[in-house]
């Protein structure tokens, strides 16, 4: 992509961005000083990355368990191939559904649509899922709720490889 920054500067900026913005009034100025560039060039580069879809999101990363979000369920469903797209789009927009993906069925795995639902506790999440299934008329479709009982490892999607973006 066109950028006022050299490749080495872009790589260094990317590593710093992954560690997050400083809590100062001009966080991009801090980055600019580190890579011997200007605040304007840094902001333009970051805007370019955002416009090209390089970020899944740009905001805060919360530890949801620290915020009292203690339950999460993976709702898996077997939806007919002809309407899985339509159901996926509808559930993807439903309140409380944080992630929604279509994945392949396997010989020992009959489900093709996956939704993640988070909430304060198990009862609340379960009630919400039942409501979702009813609203979308999916109670009769084969489905299963996979509650998580423990998280053993959680890290953000970091990208530490060399290369340019």
């Amino acid at each position, binding site marked *: 992509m066109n950028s006022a920054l050299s490749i080495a500067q872009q790589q260094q900026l990317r590593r710093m*961005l*992954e*560690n*997050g*913005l400083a*809590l100062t*009034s*001009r*966080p991009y*100025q801090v980055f600019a000083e580190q890579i011997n560039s200007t605040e304007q060039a840094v*902001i333009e580069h*970051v805007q370019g*990355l*955002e416009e090209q*879809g*390089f*970020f*899944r*999101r*740009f*905001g*805060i*990363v*919360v*530890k*949801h368990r*620290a*915020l009292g*979000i203690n339950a999460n369920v*993976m709702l898996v469903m077997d939806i007919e191939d002809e309407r899985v797209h339509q159901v*996926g*789009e509808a*559930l*993807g927009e439903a309140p409380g*559904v*944080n*992630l*929604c*993906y*279509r*994945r*392949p069925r396997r010989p*020992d795995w009959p489900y093709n649509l*996956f939704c993640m639902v*988070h909430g304060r506790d198990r009862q609340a999440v379960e009630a919400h899922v039942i409501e979702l299934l009813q609203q979308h008329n999916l109670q009769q479709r084969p489905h*299963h709720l*996979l*509650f*998580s*009982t*423990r*998280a*053993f*490892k959680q890290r*953000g*999607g*970091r*990208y530490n*490889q060399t*290369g340019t973006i």
Partner: protein
Amino acid sequence: MDEFDRHLLNRLQHGLPLVRDPWGALAEELDCSAERIRQRLQELLDDGTLTRFGPMFDIEQLGGAFTLAAMTVPEQRFAEVTELLNNIPAVAHNYRREHAFNMWFVLACPSPEGIQHSIAEIEALTGLSVLNLPKEKTYHVGLHFPL
């Protein structure tokens, strides 16, 4: 967590304004001082409620790959297998879930070939077979927790 915290965190989950002074822009929106926002965010970082502010790169846009995978791990081997997986850098998340497939993990690799390699490595290390469920279509990604 008070009303101010809730406003602040709900707002920040929708993204940070990409401007010279993002905290000042937020202060105007939330009708408070930038100083107060920065001070409170520092406290939330210090106590571990938040981990960082900034972009989360989309690994796939950068040529990398993700998959969701699962295994049926015998109960008596659960701790041992957890330890094995957690030492593999490609394992980004690992959850125990209530199902015959009781271990669910996300693999994140710099290339699609890396996924196949990691799965083979995990199968060889554990002697268990891995259910590989790469996504075929994304309908929504927006981890957002109304507070």
